[in-house]
């Protein structure tokens, strides 16, 4: 690991100043560190300064009616153990439980996962299906951005110099599910994954897939085919077929394109079943 200076600011202002005074590419931000430390070890990132967010008051979980706001540095383990999250955002709880291991989730954070934007992230598909937004703080003021717009490509996000993700906002509790396929159930990377959610406000579904390059994405057509409420078996079959046809899967060392296309259809069928069986499903 290349030597770096660890800076631990105790206020947001201090953190932004520490970011600002580092030159371009000279600073890395450390939330849980479970992804960043691997990059540091492999010299994929060679910062002169690492800015730890651990003293910032962002380990929060707040409800405003139907809306959930998760502080960016809240450990994933705390998020998955909140009974209200599991009940009102089941897809989110299921996705968090798919990440690494219990020990890893004691340090890994939702904010870190989004900003690091690994192409195989288990959390990003669910954030997309829930229309999650990020609240950013930065030298030019605060702004709010949809996760779908924030993500540019693999490991590339719309974060201006000096900006930090303060929290992740979920605008509406949604019946939802996250289903994945991988070699080992725990501590592995998903080959393919489906996040499904139903918006009671829009009477519309969201379908997002993981395991596609360069980053997880929403598939509007299968979502449309699922209709405005509980879909019948024919609609589910059509949506599953469309997901398999339309997701831009490729073959890589984890799985073949063909395998992924077939798996995504099966996962979508299971996800629909799971959402329809939830007592919270409207109608």
């Amino acid at each position: 690991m290349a030597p770096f200076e660890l800076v631990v600011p105790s206020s947001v202002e201090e953190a932004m100043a520490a970011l600002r005074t580092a030159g371009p590419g000279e600073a890395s931000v450390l939330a849980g560190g479970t992804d960043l430390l691997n990059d540091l070890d492999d010299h994929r990132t060679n910062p002169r300064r690492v800015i730890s967010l651990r003293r910032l008051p962002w380990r929060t979980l707040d409800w405003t009616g139907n809306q959930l706001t998760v502080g960016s540095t809240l450990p994933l383990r705390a998020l998955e153990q909140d009974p209200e999250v599991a009940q009102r955002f089941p897809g989110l709880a299921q996705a968090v439980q798919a990440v690494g291991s219990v020990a890893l989730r004691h340090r890994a954070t939702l904010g870190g996962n989004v900003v690091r934007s690994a192409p195989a992230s288990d959390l990003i598909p669910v954030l997309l299906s829930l229309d999650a937004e990020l609240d950013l703080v930065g030298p030019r003021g605060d702004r709010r951005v949809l996760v779908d717009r924030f993500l540019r490509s693999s490991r590339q996000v719309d974060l201006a110099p000096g900006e930090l993700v303060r929290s992740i906002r979920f605008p509406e509790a949604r019946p939802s599910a996250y289903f994945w396929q991988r070699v080992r159930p725990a501590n592995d990377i998903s080959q393919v994954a489906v996040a499904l959610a139903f918006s009671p406000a829009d009477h519309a579904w969201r379908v997002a897939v993981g395991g596609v390059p360069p980053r997880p994405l929403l598939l509007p057509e299968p979502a449309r085919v699922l209709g405005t409420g509980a879909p019948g078996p024919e609609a589910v079959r059509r949506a599953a077929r469309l997901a398999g046809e339309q997701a831009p899967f490729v073959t890589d060392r984890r799985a073949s394109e063909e395998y992924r296309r077939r798996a995504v259809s099966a996962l979508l069928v299971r996800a629909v079943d799971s959402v329809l069986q939830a007592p919270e499903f409207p109608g």
Partner: protein
Amino acid sequence: MTRPPPRLIVNGRPFDLPGLPDDERLLDTLRWRLGMKGTKEGCRTGGCGACTVLVDGESTLSCLTLAKEVDGRSVTTIEAGPEDAVVARIRSAFAAAGALQCGYCTPGFVMSLAGMIRERGGVASRAELLEALGGNLCRCTGYASIVRAVDRLVPGGP
């Protein structure tokens, strides 16, 4: 004003660490600075669980944790003494079940279980204990004997 040196409380004993490098991982501090070789280095990427310790009672991958990030906190390792009843009980269960062969992964397994038992307030279910082991790899046992050790930790077990 000089800043006090970083301090770790390891198995109840405080260690001041003047000169601790900013980029040093907790795993290396334990093994090479404090000479506690019970915590093992496996993959060093968070994939094997061999380096698992407790930080303030929570299972933590010491290979993915900067030592300075846990400044002032309590670390529990496999070297914990008999006064740590949870760790002692798990060690006994592993011995009684013969749940190790080469033993390299064992400290990580024991600490992962200890974290879950602490989190559940002293008693964890079989499912919770097995979930806690999801990030621990063993290349010798085939896991069957480890599961038998887990069964000894569940109320009503053998």
